[in-house]
């Protein structure tokens, strides 16, 4: 690496560093979309951050008599009542409540919390690394994300599809 290259890299680093503090977090479309690498039913999945308002460790979930098998109960999140639904159950897995550790809150004005077992981390997913989901994919999986350094692809979860399903079941379908 030549001297000018090193100086340029150092300058870039410094500028990037400054920018990251000076401006609110933003992601350009061509940089990729931020997402959460999650574990559901022991398998790796990807949940894009758009549409999520918070991710937190599991809180007390109070079960309710009635409701679908995906409905785990009600939690108090930031002083409001929020319905908690099982991501594993929505995807067709059978996972004990005790193994659930995380809640991702989605839905805006009418929040819904989706519960899952593990959070592998936060990632930025370039558009080029997402392929269409095979026909054999589980329900609510809209694509496959191949992340750098990971041996197997992650199923990309379709938040809208899951919320629609939850609403439809609640509505008596």
């Amino acid at each position, binding site marked *: 690496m030549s001297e000018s290259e090193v100086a340029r890299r150092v300058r870039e680093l410094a500028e990037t560093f400054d920018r990251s503090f000076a401006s609110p977090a933003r992601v350009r479309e061509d940089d990729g979309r931020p997402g959460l690498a999650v574990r559901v039913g022991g398998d790796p999945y990807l949940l894009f951050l758009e549409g999520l308002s918070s991710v937190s460790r599991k809180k007390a979930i*109070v079960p309710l*008599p009635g409701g679908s098998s995906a409905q785990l109960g009600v939690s*108090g999140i930031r002083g409001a009542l929020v*319905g908690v639904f099982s991501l594993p159950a929505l995807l067709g897995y059978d996972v004990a409540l005790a193994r659930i550790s995380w809640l991702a809150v989605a839905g805006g004005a009418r929040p819904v919390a989706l519960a899952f077992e593990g959070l592998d981390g936060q990632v930025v997913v370039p558009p080029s690394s997402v392929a269409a989901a095979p026909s054999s994919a589980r329900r609510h999986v809209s694509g496959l994300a191949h992340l750098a350094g990971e041996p197997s692809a992650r199923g990309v979860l379709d938040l809208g599809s899951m919320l629609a399903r939850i609403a439809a079941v609640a509505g008596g379908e």
Partner: protein
Amino acid sequence: MAKDPYRYFRIEAREIVEALSQGILELESRPASRDARQEVDRLLRASHTLKGAAGVVGQEGIAKLAHRLEELLAPYARAEDAASREPIGALLGIVDAVAAALSTLGTADAAPPLRPEASGEPREPSTIEKTVESVRLDLLEVDGVLASIADVVARLTSSRVASASGGGLARAELAVRDVEAWLGAARRAPDPSSLDWDAIVGTVERLRAELHVEREDLAGALEAAERRAREALEDARRLRLLPAETLFAELARAARDAAAADAGAPGVPPRPVEVETAGGSIRLDARVLGLLRDALLQLVRNAIAHALEPEAERRRAGKPVAGRIAIRFELRGARAVVTCRDDGRGIDLAALRAAVVAGGLAEEHAARGMDVGALVRLGMLRGVTTRASATALAGRGVGLQVVGTVVERLRGALAVRTEPGQGTEFELDVPVSMTAASALVVEAGDVAATIPLDAVVRTARIAADDVARSPEGDAISEAGSAVSFASLARVLRLPDDASVRREAWTAVLLEIGGARAAVGVDRILGVANEVVLPLPAPLVADAIVVGASLDGQGDPRLALEPRALVAAVCRLPGGPRADAAPVVKSVLVVDDSLTSRMLERTILEAAGYDVTTAASAEEALEIARGRTFALFVVDVEMPGMSGFEFVALTRSDPVLSATPAVLVTSRAAPEDRRRGLEAGARAYIVKGEFAEGEFLDAVRRLVG
């Protein structure tokens, strides 16, 4: 805008007026009792306070009225002055005059009327907007809001937030400056390789770690502050909630006024009417309560004008002389139900039908097919009356229209039940977005729940033996009669209902609408007056759960609906008997053959046993010493220790000998069988003769 000089006087005076009104009615119902004497003392003190306060703000008119009231009250304090007492109506008239003066205070120059009007003419209902201009606040509740806000402030200035914004972030900033300085030096350095890259990378890593910790801390503190801010908001909203009992004095007064007006001739004492009230602690939004008040005033007046018979008629019918009007507030989930029931003559259906037809509201044949509810609802559209001549009180058909408007504005429903000669019940059922009621807080399993206190008769500690079990349903004995019983965990369908093997419960005896039941809970956490929030969509729950409140940690407490709860307990078939509890028996299968192990495991698991397997006797010994089994199922021929040796060894062990052993083998020789039984095996099953049924029979004989 000029400051209102009467602001505090108005608040105080209104409270005194309400207390005076209520107290004078009490006095009328019990004029000669010892309590009455105390009541008069209280009324005299209240009048005196009012006189003094009015004098302070220069309201001489009100002060004179209060003085006059004192004069009229004085003879009520002494029995010997009974003859010189003015009628109760005169006292109430003065209170009305004070109320009228207060309503114009500071808004008009008009002086309050000095001479009270004691005509008994019912006051027109004030507009709803007028009734909710101001609400009285419970100081404890105001303190609650202040405490919540103080807590938010404390959290925002907490050490965690302070350390993040002060210490931690300051350190991060310093580290950034270090990196900046190094990078600046790098730009100028003739030889970049001389830079201490390890230091730069190390600093950036530390910086990242520090920022991560600070971010987590800050997020945690802000989340807690946000939660408390929401709670403070809920507390503040709760200030809009008023207890239903706020209306009771006014309704009692309206009943008296209506009875006086209906008496006809002036000076004739009003017909005796008793107003019973229930559910006064239920808190509803002031706007909702204001509208319900208007409807109830009309229903009370209607009952007196149309339903309650004159004394002579009531005597002939064998009824108590005093007519009875019962008003009850009740919460049914996210709905408030208000009933107004009288013990009068019932609605004259033929007359109502005729009035509906005469009013052009329905064709005669259509009216014939309508029940009382439909006819009344129709009557609400346009005032109908069954009364031949209008009086000041009723007969214009306006009352029903008012009730109809209220039901419509609150998007509620009206049900009417009537029985000739027995009485009529109007039931207003209106949705409420937020309610609060005193509730018993209980715990079942890990779930905390609240039960409205109005529905709780009492709680008692009961033993498992106190529960009479039957397939139709369990029951406990309460005052000599059987009351349906179920554990709350079972009613809520909680997983792992440990109640089956419980030795005792705290039973909560419930009664609502004449139905009774008892629920067993793990413990009682206390009594709370909590704001119940409806369950947010898309959650779905049985009718038992109508919402939830949030406890101090921000976790939900389920709000239970007592009617649905009682119905659910009564519907449940008998719970599992304690002595027939499905205890899962554990069996240890020891066999070096995978096929045999899996075959035996499959058979045993299908029969409901919990099966553990071991591939050798040595492994089995290790497992058996770690936990207790109901049975060992052991192969004879195994590498290492044989089945015979395993059985003999475990028989000589003081702990393991408690577990019976069965030998399963391909050796069918009689001497082998004998040897096995001598070693201590309780059964000897030959694999060649292996039959599932026989195998299970042997197992069941030994462990059940």
